[in-house]
């Protein structure tokens, strides 16, 4: 049994060595395709997580009209909390707001100025996607100043648009590259059939089973796919490291840890299965041959 495996695997490795450049092309293209698919899938998940984390940091500031009583402000707070998707709404008095503001500026500038700030509610959404809707709902509450709802939505919009682009562009390009690498694996196996014509003929003449004739080439495709998976994982890992360095500041802290082991497992498994399927496709004529 060991002898048989050694012979078949040996044949596959020999074919890989013989078609070095074609193998290189197939492996690098599969690696790029798997990098696109795997890497973008990982980025998509990571951005989703970042978006979830950011939801606690994106705050809506609702400015309350000056002439309201404590009861009216309390009612405004309840109205805000009743809006679907609101996680919490904290009331900050005009005085506390001003004290906090004064700390950020030199005393000489703010000492003689009368408190110009209003009472405010700081509102957080459960999901960043709902921020704009919540802000619009708050604006409709009578106790809120005209044009009195402010929030920083640029990060959230960036994340949402990035996720959308990733979905369309990333998966489109990934599938296109996967198709290309499939054709390259197919071509490599077809070249192997030509290069190994004599061996295949001898095997047939002496009565080797079809599995003995075909298995080395199926293994060859599988190895190419697996190597593509390994290279693809390394590319995703490298890209993750580079992106972390580029992020640098607080975003890097919320960026999830790279799951090297599971990424390697999934990309190698995907690459191997894909390589095997492509070589099976390339060998379809041989299955019918005598």
């Amino acid at each position: 049994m060991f002898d048989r495996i050694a012979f078949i695997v040996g044949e596959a490795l020999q074919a890989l060595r013989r078609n070095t450049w074609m193998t290189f092309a197939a492996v690098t293209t599969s690696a790029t395709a798997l990098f696109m698919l795997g890497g973008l899938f990982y980025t998509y998940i990571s951005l989703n997580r970042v978006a979830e984390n950011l939801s606690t940091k994106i705050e809506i500031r609702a400015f309350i009209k000056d002439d309201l009583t404590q009861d009216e402000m309390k009612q405004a707070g309840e109205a805000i909390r009743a809006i679907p998707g609101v996680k919490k709404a904290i009331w900050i008095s005009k005085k506390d707001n001003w004290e906090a503001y004064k700390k950020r500026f030199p005393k000489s500038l703010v000492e003689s100025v009368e408190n110009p700030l209003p009472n405010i509610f700081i509102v957080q959404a459960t999901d960043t996607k709902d921020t704009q809707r919540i802000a619009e709902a708050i604006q409709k509450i009578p106790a809120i100043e005209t044009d009195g709802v402010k929030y920083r939505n640029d990060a959230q919009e960036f994340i949402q648009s990035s996720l959308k682009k990733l979905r369309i562009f990333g998966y489109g390009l990934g599938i296109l590259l996967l198709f290309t690498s499939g054709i390259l694996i197919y071509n490599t196996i077809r070249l192997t059939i030509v290069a190994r014509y004599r061996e295949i003929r001898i095997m047939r003449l002496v009565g080797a089973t079809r599995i003995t004739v075909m298995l080395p080439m199926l293994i060859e495709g599988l190895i190419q796919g697996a190597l593509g998976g390994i290279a693809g994982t390394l590319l995703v890992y490298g890209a993750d490291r580079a992106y972390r360095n580029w992020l640098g500041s607080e975003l890097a802290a919320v960026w999830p840890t790279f799951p090297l082991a599971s990424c390697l497992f999934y990309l190698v498994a995907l690459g191997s299965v894909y390589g095997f399927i492509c070589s099976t496709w390339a060998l379809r004529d041989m299955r019918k041959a005598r």
Partner: protein
Amino acid sequence: MSVSLSPLIKFSKVEVKFSDLVYGLRGITLDIAEGEFVFLCGPTGSGKSTILKLLYREAEHTQGVVTFKGKDLGEVGVMEIPKLRRQMGIVPQDFALLPQKRVWENIAYAMRAVGATSRQVRAAVPGILEQVNIAHRADAYPHQLSGGEQQRVAIGRALINNPKLLLADEPTANLDPEYSLEIVDLLVKLNAAGATVVVASHDMGIVDKAQKRVVRVAGGLIESDPGVGNV
């Protein structure tokens, strides 16, 4: 080698039709007994190679019946072909040796392909090389061998399954006359050792010297045949 009366190979009205106008064989009937040495002679395209190919199922007949050891080869499925071929030794016209492998490796490779272990290969290869008188060139590469020596290796490779039937397609086509005689001598020796040998050849000089049964094929038909056991 004594010839058995029961046919090892039987062709009954066998026709091979490639298209409406092109026929490989046009309804031949032929018996070959166990232990016989038969030459299939005729010009190129006469159908002699097709007869061999039908036996190892590289070609398929469109009419009639071909039997080997009593089994109808038309009923042999694609999956059973390797098993059928292990009962025969096939010597192709072009030697089909692996140029990057030494003589003994060419034999070993074929053995490994049919599932022999390294130990079995080590035990069997020297004997096979002796059988075809090429043991002294075991470490040579094919390009270092003469045509006759290369053909000996090809015949040696055909012996790996210890076959009872040896099919050789134009084994002397690419050889000088002296090497051709050498190869025919070798085939005669293997026949004497028990193998049934069927040789397709258009080299009438060699055929005449061998003094064996000669079946003449022309245009897909059998032109003459002395019959089983006759020379």
